[in-house]
């Protein structure tokens, strides 16, 4: 029915157009008249989501309103339903709904005019819900173990994140065993899968004790990272029985997972750095401990030697005193001995006469005339003889 309507044809009862013909013609005119999609700004009102998942609402401003439909396949990408009165931009194709003869917009994209839009809206709602349950309390944050031996990792098995984690952990802290619980991290069903993987992580901890967990993915677009802004995923992260480092590869945007995790790292590599010590540093620490141990032993040995020396010193002092005391007594004795010495007497000018046998000749009777004898004077002996009368 590409031809222009023939108004006269319509006057003949048998030539009248059907309702559908007119409605379809109107749709064609509208669709060709608007040449494709256009951005429309307005306020959402009368929002209704049908069982089918399609959204119906009216876009209005102060002067007019337009009926809108957003099919389920389009609105599925959006994080939240628009609230009553929300001001939005829609990218839409004007059309006529033939069955109702109703002019309307088929919306393919919907953004709020506020910064961050619907994503922000949903995030704020989820954040409030998490805060209400105390999941964002700073006091909930657990400390990461210093020397983990088993690290659970929830990420995509074929993403760069996992490769980075494996490579860095092997270099930094090969003492830890890495346990990957693979999951989809973006796209349809990713939320469910991440929640499932976090559950597996908890059960793994029951079988093999985990020290710490890393949950995340490499960088991506805002939409790609959205899985980690899901309230369900955030709650699953909060429920992990060991400390969690979140690593949703984005430097600037903080996700809900980051908020509930015990430590937030900007990238998976940074998560490994938070969760593990550096082997070289630990080796240096051990060297330091070793020095302290050696120093202690040396100090102990020195103290023992010192004590021994002190003891020996004490002994020596005692001995010396003894000796000194002994010495002075000896000197005193010596003096007395000296005084008594016959040599002293001789020195005073006396002499001792002795016979050849050494007997001291004390009396005249012992000194017969002509008898030879020795005379001991102070500096020696001289031979002598008793004179004949």
């Amino acid at each position, binding site marked *: 029915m590409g031809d222009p309507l023939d108004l006269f044809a319509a006057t003949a009862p048998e030539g009248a157009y059907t309702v559908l013909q007119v409605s379809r013609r109107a749709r064609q005119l509208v669709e060709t008249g608007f040449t494709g999609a256009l951005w429309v700004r307005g306020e959402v009102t009368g929002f209704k989501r049908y069982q089918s998942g399609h959204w119906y609402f009216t876009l209005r401003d102060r002067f007019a309103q337009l009926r809108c439909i957003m099919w389920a396949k389009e609105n599925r990408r959006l994080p939240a339903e628009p609230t009553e009165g929300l001001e939005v931009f829609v990218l839409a194709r004007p059309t006529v709904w033939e069955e109702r003869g109703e002019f309307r917009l088929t919306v393919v994209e919907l953004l709020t005019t506020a910064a961050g839009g619907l994503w922000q809206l949903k995030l704020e709602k989820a954040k409030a819900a998490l805060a209400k349950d105390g999941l964002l309390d700073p006091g909930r944050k657990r400390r990461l173990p210093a020397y983990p031996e088993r690290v659970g990792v929830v990420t995509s098995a074929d993403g760069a994140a996992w490769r980075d984690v494996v490579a860095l952990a092997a270099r930094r802290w090969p003492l830890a065993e890495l346990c990957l619980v693979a999951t989809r991290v973006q796209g349809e069903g990713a939320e469910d899968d991440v929640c499932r993987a976090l559950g597996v*992580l908890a059960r793994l901890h029951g079988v093999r004790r985990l020290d710490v967990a890393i949950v995340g993915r490499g960088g991506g677009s805002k939409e790609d990272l959205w899985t980690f802004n899901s309230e369900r995923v955030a709650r699953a992260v909060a429920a992990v029985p060991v400390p969690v480092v979140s690593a949703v590869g984005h430097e600037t945007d903080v996700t809900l997972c980051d908020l509930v995790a015990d430590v937030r790292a900007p990238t998976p590599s940074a998560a490994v750095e938070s969760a593990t010590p550096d082997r070289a540093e630990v080796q240096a620490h*051990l060297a330091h401990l070793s020095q302290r141990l050696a120093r202690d032993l040396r100090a102990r040995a020195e103290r023992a030697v010192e004590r021994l020396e002190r003891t020996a010193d004490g002994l020596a002092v005692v001995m010396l005193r003894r000796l000194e005391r002994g010495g002075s007594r000896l000197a005193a004795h010596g003096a007395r001995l000296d005084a008594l010495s016959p040599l002293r007497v001789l020195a005073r000018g006396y002499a001792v006469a002795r016979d050849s046998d050494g007997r001291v000749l004390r009396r005249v009777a012992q000194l017969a005339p002509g008898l030879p004898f020795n005379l001991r004077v102070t500096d020696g002996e001289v031979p002598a003889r008793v004179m004949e009368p």
Partner: protein
Amino acid sequence: MNAERPSFAGELARLEEILRRLEAEDLDLDEALRLFEEGVERLRSARERLTTAEAKVKRVLQDHAGKIKLEDGD
């Protein structure tokens, strides 16, 4: 992992405790020597772990019955 072996963290904590005791307490020489020997042994063991450790990677799987399985390799 062998269960009887203390964790690295446990070993290091014990080593630090030994040092604290050696440095702070008035121990008799026998006790000090015993602690010293233990300290040296733990140091040796910790160092060995650091130098011989090789990265291990497992994949965690869950079978239909919900049982957790670990497979080697990345």
